[in-house]
Every structure is written in structure tokens, then in C-alpha cells.
């Protein structure tokens, strides 16, 4: 393992976060002075295709206590806990309910339940992994709620892997001093999401699909009080009024920061950040992007596809073109990615793929050699199947990998209940920031979404009882636009929020977007 000093030097020189010209300062609004990736800054300086002055805020389609924007794991858990406490709850989502990065999580969820583990060790691992930039109160919440969240999920019927003795199977992720990741094969997120979706249906919670929020609505006291939506099929625009709003819109992978491929869902276009910024929510650490070390570099049809960190946890090694290991595989993701970029770039020891891309080997057959024949079938059926489709037998051949954009480490600033700097606006999951510092550990995002989804849902339902919403306004949107214009940086040609990535025509050939 590298020392903290060696880590810092490696990051400074090779991590994409520190590349010249990749980020710029936000010039106006609540987040003035924050540095964010250019691709996000562009959206912050864009305009909404929906004109605020044309929205009639007196015509409200539906009135609810708790409005949850986003139908992944964070939104679904917030909904279950809010509805359980009697709140009239509505979940809206841009695509289908469950379409999210949650379903794509392969490796698992962290919880310190092992004999030689403790929430304190989980705390240290998380802080160190984040470069000690994490907000301590959030990490405290994360690690103390983790065992309870794991038990809650198991009680909902999630089939977590068991070991030979019938206990919960636990694996390593990078940066962990104990095995702490709990999995359901390499389908962990999908298994959790389909269970959670089923439970939301069981509870009769209202779901509105194909309806992205395009603007947050405030009331005359500056509190968040609903949102404007678009029906993606009919293009109808409508207003939902609510006492509390919980944003759970996920991340930004589909902006393709610095042209990287991404592991993210089609819908990960930073919509929540864009509308929250206009509404006055502070963001934190949004210049810290996570590049997962093992994105697929070949075959091209799988470019950017996540190859679970659990492979390295199960003893697969990273090897350069000369057959040498170049980094301890259990280093954190930022370190491992930087080391790979160094190996392929400065050291020129990459492996060229048939399509001309460079990568390094992930020696997957080692898993079968070290952990027994059949291990890959048992622990990685999804990835086995994916590669098998393209004629690559990962039990016998290594995989060619290269870092791929995976996660936004930062996001909307929240307190330990998920509340943002805008009254009655909460945020949960990837859209929020602070808990992971500058680099999230594997297994901490499936945990984060449920810890803070639950906390936000509970407080939202309690607080909603005492709120009467004032007169609705979109004044903040127009004010923000005026500020942009005054500063000469308004970008009328950019529509924000983006809602859907555009991969049409030649863009389908650029190869970056899986």
C-alpha cells in the first residue's frame, strides 16, 4: 500500500480531477466560487427550455406532503419511510421507476457487522478513502446506520450472499481494512431495486413515470414547495405542490466529463444539480469525480461497462503490457485509476486493444485459481454472461480495462438528515455530497442512498405535518438567469436541465458512451 504522501503525489499528477482546464469556477448564484467540471458549468450557465414566465403556478395538478424526485434507491427508500409515517407521498421519475445507477451497482453494500469490524473502522476507512475531505457528521450517520439498513434490506427479502457457515458473505473493496461489502452476486443493486420497487407497489405509494422535474418551485417565504414537470410523452408541463421536496435524481455520468466513457445509467444527466443550483442550494466538492479503475476497454460493445471492484476483492490482479503488477489492487479507486492512467500514459506500458484503445489487464482467471473453480460463476454471473456473449471467457482469459467515469463524489450540501441549504428541500443519494469526501469507497453508495433516503423520508414526513405552503414562485429562476446575463456568460444555446443525452447520428460512433 502507498503512503498518504505517495497517494497525494500520484493523484496530483495523474488523476483527471487535476488536469489543466478540466474545471472552472461558477461565476454567479449561491455557488459562486465553487469549481466544477466544465460540462456541469456549461449546464449551470444554460437556460431552461421551459419558460418560467409561462407557467401558471396557480394551476396545480396535485398537492402532496412529500414530493420525491427520482425513482432509484434513494427515492424509493425515502418514499417507503415517508409513507410509513402517514405522509401523502408522490415519487416522480424521468424514466421508469427503478431506472437508476442503483440497479447498476454490482459489488455490494458496506456495513460493519463482522466479528472483527466496527463502525469506527468503517468511519476511518471512509474518511481516508475520501482524502479526509468528508463531512464528519455525515460519515458518522453513514456508519452507525449501516447495520440497521442491511438488516432492513434483508427483511424486505433481499437475497444477500451467504458463506459456507450460513453467515453473510463479506468481500473487500479498495481502501477497506476489513471485508465489509455485502453482495447479491454481481447483481446487488438490481436485486435490491427490484425488491424495493415491489415494496413501494405493496404500500400503494403513487408513482409518476416519464416525468422529469425541470424546475424547483419556492414559496413566498423562500421555502421549497414543489416542482414543475414535463410529461416526456405528451410534452405537457405541470406543477406539483408539496410541503417537502426530496431530490434523489442521481449523478452526472452522461455528461461524459473530459470525454470519458461512463458506467452510468442513460438518465444520469445532472438534472437535480441544475435545478437545485437555481433554487439556491449550496453544492460541495463537485470538482471531485470518481473514475472507476476497471471499466471495460474491449470489446467495444461493452466499452465503459463496469467490471466490479469485487474482482479485485476476490484476488484478481491488474497487470500492464509487460505482465507486471503496478499497484496494490486494494488501493482506493482514485489511486488505482491514477496508477492505470500513469501506466498507459507516462510509462507507456499499456495494452493496445484491437480498436486502438489502450488499457491494462484485469487478471480474472486468478480468481478461479486462488478461490476455487466455479467462483466466477457463483460470484460474477452477470459479468460472465456479458463477456460470454462476445466470445470472451473471463474464467480463462483476462479482461482489458481502463478507467471510466463512475460517480460524482460531491453534490448538494446536506446535513445529517439530508436537508439542503434551501428550507424544506432535501437531497439523498448521489445528487448530494460530502459524505464521501473526494473519493467514495466501493460499497458506500448503496449504503449512502438508503441511510440518507431513510433519514430524509422520516424527517420530511414529520415536518410536513406543520407546514402550510405560501404563494408559489419561480422568481429565483428568472433572477439567476438575469445574473448570468449581467455577467455575460448566459448560454442560450444550452438547454438545462439536459434530461436526455444526445447520441444521434455520428455521435453514436464516438465510442465514449456505451
Amino acid at each position, binding site marked *: *500500500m502507498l503512503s*498518504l504522501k505517495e497517494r497525494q503525489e500520484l493523484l496530483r499528477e495523474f488523476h483527471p480531477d487535476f488536469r489543466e482546464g478540466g474545471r472552472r469556477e461558477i461565476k454567479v448564484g449561491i455557488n459562486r466560487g465553487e469549481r466544477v467540471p466544465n460540462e456541469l458549468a456549461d449546464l449551470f450557465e444554460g437556460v431552461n427550455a421551459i419558460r418560467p414566465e409561462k407557467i401558471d403556478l396557480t394551476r396545480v395538478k396535485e398537492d402532496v406532503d412529500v414530493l420525491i424526485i427520482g425513482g432509484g434507491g434513494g427515492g424509493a427508500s425515502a418514499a417507503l419511510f415517508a409513507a410509513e409515517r402517514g405522509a401523502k407521498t408522490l415519487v416522480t421519475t424521468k*424514466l*421508469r421507476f427503478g431506472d437508476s445507477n442503483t*440497479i*447498476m451497482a454490482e459489488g455490494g453494500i458496506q456495513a*460493519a*457487522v463482522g*466479528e*472483527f469490524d466496527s*463502525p*469506527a*473502522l468503517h*468511519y*476511518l*476507512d471512509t474518511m*481516508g478513502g475520501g482524502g*479526509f475531505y468528508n463531512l*464528519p*457528521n455525515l460519515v*458518522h450517520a453513514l456508519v*452507525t446506520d449501516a*447495520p*440497521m439498513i442491511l*438488516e432492513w434490506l*434483508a427483511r*424486505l*427479502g433481499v*437475497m444477500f450472499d451467504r458463506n459456507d457457515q*450460513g*453467515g453473510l458473505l463479506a468481500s*473487500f473493496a479498495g481502501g477497506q*481494512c*476489513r*471485508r465489509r461489502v455485502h453482495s447479491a*452476486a454481481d*447483481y446487488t443493486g*438490481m436485486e435490491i431495486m*427490484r*425488491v424495493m420497487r415491489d415494496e413501494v407497489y*405493496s404500500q400503494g405509494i403513487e408513482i409518476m413515470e*416519464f416525468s422529469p422535474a425541470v424546475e424547483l418551485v419556492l414559496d413566498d417565504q423562500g421555502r421549497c414547495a414543489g416542482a414543475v414537470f414535463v410529461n416526456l410523452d405528451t410534452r405537457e408541463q405541470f406543477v406539483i405542490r408539496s410541503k417537502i421536496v426530496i431530490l434523489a435524481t442521481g449523478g452526472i455520468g452522461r455528461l461524459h466529463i473530459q470525454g470519458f466513457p461512463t*458506467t452510468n*445509467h*442513460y*438518465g444520469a444527466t445532472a438534472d437535480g444539480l441544475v435545478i437545485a443550483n437555481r433554487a439556491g442550494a449550496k453544492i460541495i466538492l463537485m470538482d471531485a469525480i470518481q473514475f472507476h479503475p476497471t471499466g471495460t476497454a474491449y470489446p467495444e*460493445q461493452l466499452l465503459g461497462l463496469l467490471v466490479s471492484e469485487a474482482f479485485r476483492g476476490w484476488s484478481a490482479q491488474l497487470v500492464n503490457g509487460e505482465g507486471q503488477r503496478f499497484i496494490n489492487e486494494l488501493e482506493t479507486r482514485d489511486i488505482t485509476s491514477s496508477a492505470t492512467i500513469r501506466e498507459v500514459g507516462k510509462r507507456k506500458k499499456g495494452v493496445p486493444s484491437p480498436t486502438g484503445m489502450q488499457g491494462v489487464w484485469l487478471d480474472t482467471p486468478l480468481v478461479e485459481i486462488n478461490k476455487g473453480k466455479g467462483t466466477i460463476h457463483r460470484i460474477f*454471473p*452477470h459479468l460472465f*454472461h*456479458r463477456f460470454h456473449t462476445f466470445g470472451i471467457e473471463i474464467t480463462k482469459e483476462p479482461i482489458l480495462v481502463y478507467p471510466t467515469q463512475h460517480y460524482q463524489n460531491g453534490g448538494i450540501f446536506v446535513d445529517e438528515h439530508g436537508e439542503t441549504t434551501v428550507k424544506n428541500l432535501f437531497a439523498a443519494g448521489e445528487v448530494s455530497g460530502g459524505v464521501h469526501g473526494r473519493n467514495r469507497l466501493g460499497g458506500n453508495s448503496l449504503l449512502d442512498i438508503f441511510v440518507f433516503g431513510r433519514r430524509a423520508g422520516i424527517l420530511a414526513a414529520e415536518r410536513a405535518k406543520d407546514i402550510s405552503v405560501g404563494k408559489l414562485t419561480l422568481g429565483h429562476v428568472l433572477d439567476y438567469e438575469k445574473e448570468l446575463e449581467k455577467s455575460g456568460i448566459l448560454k442560450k444555446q444550452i438547454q438545462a436541465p439536459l434530461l*436526455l443525452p444526445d*447520441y*444521434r*447520428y*455520428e455521435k*453514436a*460512433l464516438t465510442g465514449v*458512451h*456505451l
Partner: protein
Amino acid sequence: MESQQKKSISIFIFGRKYEVPKGLTIQKAMEYSGYQFIRSCGCRGGICGACVTEYRVPGKYQLKVALACQTLTEPEMQITQSPFVPMNRAPYALEQLKNQSGILGKIYPEIYRCLQCNTCTRVCPMEIQVMEYIAHAIRGETETVATLSFQCIMCGACVSKCPAEISQPNVALLARRIYGRHMLVIPDGVYQRISDIQKGKYTRVLEQLVQMDQEQLTHTYTLREQEPQDNRGWTPKHPTFPEDPPADR
């Protein structure tokens, strides 16, 4: 990328002809043809079930079912998509269910209508033995249904083809939830840890960690003991670390 552009093929999307470069998946070929997906697109990695696509290729009588993001285009391929399949989902409260015999058939009695035509298995893009798990469901073998169906992405391809009008993914989901909730045991250690946290066993040490300045925290971090890859017989030298005071090692 250039070599792809040199060689193109014709495909038919909803009956309309398009020229696309060779070697693209159906999903990318449709985008190349000008489609910006709202439906029929999700994870783009074969796990969300959004992009179920039916196609025929010339000279073959079969109507194939596949995921658009995982399937390469072929010359003269005829493509159509059905992004949404209504499924029957019965109301139930999982907590109150037990793994009583015949529970799956009680909640979804239509499973007894299975004609054993095996179309469900044939069309499954995940190559799941769908008919087989329905047979196990009929026999009340919840665990087998749960494990056989584990890779189901709930795309609904089987549902759209089933002559017995069964919603297989929901039968399987119920089986998995009953198995996960009522048949798999949550280890005592998990409850013990939750109880310890609630009783305040870690309150003090966590408070200390939260209060630490950067220097103390990084120092404590570097003192962690790493569990080895082969942990048979391993026990940490300082099992209570980092409780007070963090031991220097």
C-alpha cells in the same frame, strides 16, 4: 471507427430502411439512424430490462427476442421494440406471508395454466429456465424458484409471449422475497451489532473520531490493521482499535 464507417449494412427499424455502419448494437444503430430514446433505453449494460427488442433476419423463420444494448445488428434485420409489458401483480404483505406450501400458487393461481410450451425460456434474453422455475412454483418449491430466477431483469419478454397469460417475473420476485425474508436466516451477529450501536457501545469512540483534527485522524488512519486476503485463522492484534487511546504500533 473509420473502418466501421466504410462498411455499412441496411436494417429496418419499425419497417423503415436505414443504412448503418457494421458492428453496432441495435441500440447504437437506432441512435445512428436518428433516434433519441425516451423508452427502450436504460442502463445500456444489459441489466435494466428497458430495451427488449424483437427482430427477424432474412432466411430464418424465427422471431427473435433480445436486448437492444447487447445485440449486434445483422444485414437486413427487421427490428421492432416493445418497451412496456403490462404485468399482473397481486397485492400481498410480505411480512405476513410465510413459506407455507402452495403460497405461490395461492397468490398467482394462473401458474397452474402453464401449457409447458417453453416459449418463455426460448425468448428470455438472460437465458433463464423460465418454464422450469414455473414448474417448480407449481410444485411449491420456493427456494428453487428463487435461485433459478435470480438473474431475471424483469424485462417482460416472457410475459408478452405466454399463452397461459402468466406474469412470470412477478411470480419469481415473490418467490425470491419469500426466500430472502422467511427462509434465509439473518445472522445473530447483525442483530447484536445493531443492538450494540443502539446501546451506545460505539458512541464514545465515534465522538472522538469526529472531534479529531486532521493530523490526529490521519495518524489514527495509518494505524489500522489490514485483514489479509487469506484470513483463515486471522485475528487482529488490537481488536478494540481505535478505542482509547489509539495504540501506536
